[in-house]
């Protein structure tokens, strides 16, 4: 099977969410290898890592690898990079020591107005240059690689001159950033913009892929909406299997942010991802033992 040497394999994870805090701290997790934490949720109301949520995260970190996943970097915006936010993120990074740090390939606001959404970018060389420059600055500031995620989108721009996967590939080439391949987002965007999702998977640089996301979505008449409030659908599971065969074993995370299920139900989704990996590319317990990074001390 093809190998990805860009990151260590830490297995199959889930988003760390408030309704599950107690069970995770009580050691009731059975099928989750690592957790992804939304960075902004641990910065307190005043963007300084503090408070009880951070206490919980640090306790979870004693037993599980953690990945920090942000939603406010706005790497594609024309506003200056938010230095206060980056400083807080670096501080959070120093406390948590995550396996990697990620955010989204999008803009979230402009002229100081944060829309708290992941808005698509036009796929042009001008945008590539702009985004690549900002990614380099962030990587230099943090002192480590940034991993960026493809977003679901509901509109595209007439001025776009390349495909999304060509856009991603060019940005990676210029910055050596990691890629978080959200398989559900590829599926949703392929439906909304009528392209072949498998062509997308084949078109991204496999060695750049640090992680994959899986999630549920909803239907709103002609469009699919990335709502993260439902189980992963069969078509996305199928695309995930295709992605594994194409790029090799990749750290995989199940996102479920709305209508949050019980921990047991969430673990069923994570186990399903693990079973697909076993059945399609033969990831076994033996692979885990040899490839997983050591649990943090």
């Amino acid at each position: 099977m093809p190998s990805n040497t860009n990151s260590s394999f830490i297995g199959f994870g889930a988003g760390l969410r408030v309704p599950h805090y107690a069970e995770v701290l009580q050691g009731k997790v059975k099928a989750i290898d690592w957790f992804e934490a939304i960075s902004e949720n641990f910065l307190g109301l005043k963007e300084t890592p503090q408070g009880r949520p951070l206490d919980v995260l640090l306790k979870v970190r004693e037993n599980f690898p953690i990945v920090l996943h942000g939603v406010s970097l706005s790497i594609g915006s024309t506003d200056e990079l938010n230095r206060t936010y980056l400083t807080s993120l670096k501080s959070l990074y120093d406390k948590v020591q995550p396996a990697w740090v990620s955010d989204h390939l999008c803009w979230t606001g402009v002229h100081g107005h944060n829309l708290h959404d992941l808005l698509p970018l036009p796929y042009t060389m001008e945008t590539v240059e702009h985004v690549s420059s900002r990614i380099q600055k962030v990587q230099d500031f943090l002192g480590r690689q940034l991993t960026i995620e493809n977003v679901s989108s509901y509109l595209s721009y007439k001025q776009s001159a390349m495909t999304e996967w060509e856009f991603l590939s060019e940005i990676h080439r210029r910055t050596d950033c990691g890629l978080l391949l959200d398989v559900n987002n590829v599926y949703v965007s392929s439906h909304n913009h009528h392209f072949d999702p498998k062509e997308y998977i084949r078109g991204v640089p496999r060695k750049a892929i640090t992680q994959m996301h899986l999630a549920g979505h909803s239907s709103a008449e002609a469009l699919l909406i990335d709502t993260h409030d439902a189980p992963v659908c069969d078509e996305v599971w199928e695309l995930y299997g295709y992605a594994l065969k194409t790029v090799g074993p990749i750290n995989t995370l199940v996102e479920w942010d709305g209508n949050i299920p019980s921990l047991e139900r969430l673990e069923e989704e994570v186990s399903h991802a693990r079973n697909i990996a076993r059945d399609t590319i033969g990831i076994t317990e033996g692979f885990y033992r040899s490839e997983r990074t050591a649990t943090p001390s």
Partner: protein
Amino acid sequence: MELLKVFTDPKGPRHLLENKEIDLSFVEDQKGASSIERVSVYSDAYFLRLKEILENDFELTRLVLGDALFLDLIVDYLKTHHPYRPNAQWVGGHLSEFVGQSSWAKKKLLSALVDFDWMLTEVTFETYLENRAAAKLPLLSPEFFSEATFVPDSSAKFLRCSAELEDLWLGRHNKIENPSSTLTESDKPWLLVRRGEDGRIIFYRLSDAERRFWLELAQSKALLSVCEILEEDEEASLAVAQLGSWIQMGLIKDIQHSSLS
């Protein structure tokens, strides 16, 4: 700037386009959904996301004003106070100031109510739910207490437990003898019991002070006079701090305030 206006103007993209206030010619025409439908996904999500956050963070205010008036308030607020921080939870941080400086200031004591809600949000966010009761919240002005009454769920009943629940269970399973003898009379917990919407019986453990607080509220007394019955300021502060939780749990069914309706 065009997209910013399209996504955030409360009039909505359809109205803006019909009135030629925006131009969507930069959006690619694609089959399946029109340009308006595509931008509406983002504009609807923007408003709904912020509405949900503000509804969660200003539970008391919404209960007092009612849904329609609360919606008017947040639409007005968001016209001049757009979110700007990375953490979306901060979006309500200036609502009290806005109320005090706008035409909403005519609604007597609305600013104090909004302040109270925001205090609960800050306490919840910073110290996590389990520690909320331990936070000492200052009492609001006597004026607020003299006018607001809280209406608890009238179907809830009280039980006095002869022993701690854990000891009753242990006694039932023969693991300890005489579980009722483990507590003094004043330590025996009160349980507030009600039937939930799904038919389940739900128990809430209340301290003696919280029970007295509840019973006084149930007699439609104003909050200040209820707090005066509690002998210790700390007890009163903790009981007032519980109001937010009780509203979220559905134990407080209504708040009546003549000058805010």
